[in-house]
């Protein structure tokens, strides 16, 4: 009977595993609140930014599709533009320990310095709870939450699903476009798109 707890655990894990994508957040509803620790061990809560536009970006430094947007400077430029507009940018790493892209706080700080990452906070979601609650499937996978906490965009960073940096200049940057529309008080015209990239390296 030694195996019983582990069997029970596996069953729970299986249920938890089957649910996340079904439980993904819906546009037009309040985005689920969460608390995660950042690179300095500080707890960051989504709801503390109520009143500001918040961008969530799922990140994995080992993923070639993430590299496409960082080595070209595209992601940093998008982050900078968003923050200049007064928005908050949270970069989230749901990579589990031992999986591709997992980092310690120190490693992440070094990467932020090296790549000049412009996000407001870099958060760790090692257990994948927030990633699954949001149905984050790829890196990058982008979400935009407006000042009243409502999810207004989810999907890819742009509409050219390749790993080739040369495609960036011909692509429509969905995040910049949505931020522009939010700023001028318009409805986000492309509120959902297909995210592309590597799969998020969840623990289970």
């Amino acid at each position, binding site marked *: 009977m030694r195996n019983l707890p582990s069997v029970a655990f596996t069953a729970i894990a299986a249920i938890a595993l*089957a649910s996340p994508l079904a439980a993904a957040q819906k546009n037009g509803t309040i985005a689920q609140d969460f608390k995660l620790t950042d690179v300095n061990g500080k707890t960051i809560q989504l709801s503390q930014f109520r009143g500001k536009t918040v961008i969530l970006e799922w990140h994995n430094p080992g993923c070639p599709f993430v590299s496409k947007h960082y080595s070209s400077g595209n992601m940093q430029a998008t982050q900078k533009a968003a923050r200049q507009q007064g928005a908050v940018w949270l970069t989230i790493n749901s990579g589990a320990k031992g999986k*591709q892209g997992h980092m310690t706080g120190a490693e992440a700080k070094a990467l932020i310095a090296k790549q000049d990452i412009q996000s407001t906070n870099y958060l760790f979601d090692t257990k994948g709870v927030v990633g699954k609650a949001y149905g984050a499937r790829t890196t990058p996978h982008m979400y935009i939450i407006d000042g009243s906490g409502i999810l207004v965009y989810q999907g890819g960073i742009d509409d050219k699903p390749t790993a080739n940096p040369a495609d960036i200049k011909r692509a429509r940057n969905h995040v910049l476009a949505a931020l522009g529309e939010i700023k001028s008080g318009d409805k986000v015209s492309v509120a959902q798109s297909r995210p592309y990239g590597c799969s998020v*390296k969840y623990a289970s």
Partner: protein
Amino acid sequence: MTFDFRILAMMLAFVTLAFAPAAEAQNRLGNTELNVPATLLAESQQVQAGQTVTLAFLMQPKPTWHGYWENPGDAGIGMSFDWKLPAGVTAGKAQFPVPDTLLISGIMNYVYKGDYAVLVNLTLSDKVRSGPLPISVKSEWLSCTDEICVPEQDELSITLQVVEAESSAPIDKRFNDFRAAMARPLGSEATFSVSDDLFRLSVPLPANVQIDKPYFFIKEDGMVDYGAPQKFTRDGDRVILETGARGDQLDTISGILKIGDHMGFLFTATKGEVAMTGLPLVNDGAKAEGSASLLFLALGGALLGGLLLNLMPCVFPILSLKAISLAKAGGNESEVRRDALAYTAGVVLVATALGAILLGLRASGAAVGWAFQLQDPRIIFVLLALVTAIGLNLAGLFELPNLNFGNKLTKKDGTAGSFWTGALAAFVATPCTGPFMAAALGATIVLPPVAALVIFAGLGVGLALPFLLIAFVPAIRSRLPKPGPWLDSFRKIMAIPMFLTSIGLIWLLGRQIGTDALGLSLIFLLTISLILWWFGGGQMKGLSRGALTSAAMVVAIVAGILALPGEDAMNDQKLASSSSATLPSEPFSETRLSELRASGEPVFAYFTADWCITCKANEAAAIQRTETADAFRAAKVAVLMGDWTRPDPDISRFLEKHGRAGVPLYLYYAPGAEPVILPQILTVATLTELVNGPVQSAMLDATPQ
């Protein structure tokens, strides 16, 4: 571990590859080693202007690596092609083989783990001049393990030869395997609906098509929650799917319904109403919960069905008399219980054994249903003799002595006698199961074998239940009428349902073997009855004719069985009675077709598959009709039938040559003329006009408008 035919095919292809280096394309332009390397192949090195040649990207993932289907699922990216083609050459859409699912941490990927080939058709215009034809393509794809992903690309090229005359270059046999791994067009349209976050899809597929671990791969993104479990049911000629929805922005979708290893159907679906009806199909064994509830439901159905079987004309007489005789035994409680248990054991054992045989036959590929034992005329004959004998016994023609097998059916008690009564009851009861049992028995086909056997045993328990109640609840037993002179009359009345059962069996026998053979069988049946009568007469006079009677019975029954028509005759009878032989046909082959064409005969060639509803509908409505058969016979039309139920490379190539990716295809070759491709929906008139054409059109011409 399932046997992966495709991998074997690819391995064989490799061996071929080693011996045919000249046929290889030039590629690998300064790339670092790829994890999923691609090789560009052509089915034929030579092609004529105005023709089509098929190219293949042979993708060979290293161990642990995989490539992606055109819709990669939750993550990943499909393959892209950037062609550099000479003027007058166009590349068609890439065709991908049936993919596999790969679920990692709730993220669904549609992938290929082993070697696979992506096919593209190149079409040359009439104006392409003879000589070398350089083809080059830059392709990008994503290669992943369960952990990491690497975008890969390669520039592949191949040089074909444009020739004037028919190509003499050999055809690359590997393409047969490549094509066999593709999904085949279903030919009919499906319907889908999206409501309350549920996506439903109803696909037309004949009820007799075997399905193993079905999965629906949708091509369009944003409609289906890829990671959600897919629930399937079957309702007649439809397969219905329910899974999580992601959106409902599209009115038309397309995809592949996978129904087995590398076996899938390609179709489009339009928006409509879809209800979840029919019997649930158990998907990939992981849904033990669904399977368990299905098991309980089916078990309940089986119990109830078994209980109702007690009222069937074939069972009721045996049972009621047995029950009364139990009551008669009265006092001895333990003996009564032992009898009841023996009876139950007999019923359950026979029901389970019949179920096991049924499952075994099904596993061996035979299309049999419950009451399959009644498909064999010999068994029907034995059963007929037995039921008639029981009827005669009940009618009082003879009494059963204590000695022979099955002799304690109704009267004398004893553990062995009870057991055989139970066995007999179960055996004769099965054909009476009726429609209310169909659902429970249908479930046995989709449940794992052990669970299926439990259901058959449940049927047996249900059948034995009243008997167990009588034995174990004395209150019920005391309510049963006391035996008396009325019992004799009751017994004689009970002979009536027994004889009715005999008539039912005679009818069944007649349908299977025809009236001539039936007459002969009835003569043997009469002989058996006369022997029993003679035996009964002896009993009245106090003479023992048991040994002689038994011998004569055995002779009569064996003779009766031997006199029955053999398997072949029976099949002929079946063919003659079924519509499938109305228009006889030969199997299709291109050689046979050219032979017939050379001899100047008109030819009608049709291509069908058991899973194709349109095909079956056309056959029933137009092809297998007396009018059509008569017209074709009069015009001496040769009929060729190509069966594409299993992938057949020759038929695949022939279909492709006629611009069809799948069945149905109907062709008419008038002597010396170009073939006419007939419409996909046939009528008797379409077919008969082919041969009576001139007359009919002349008449039409003469008719004033």
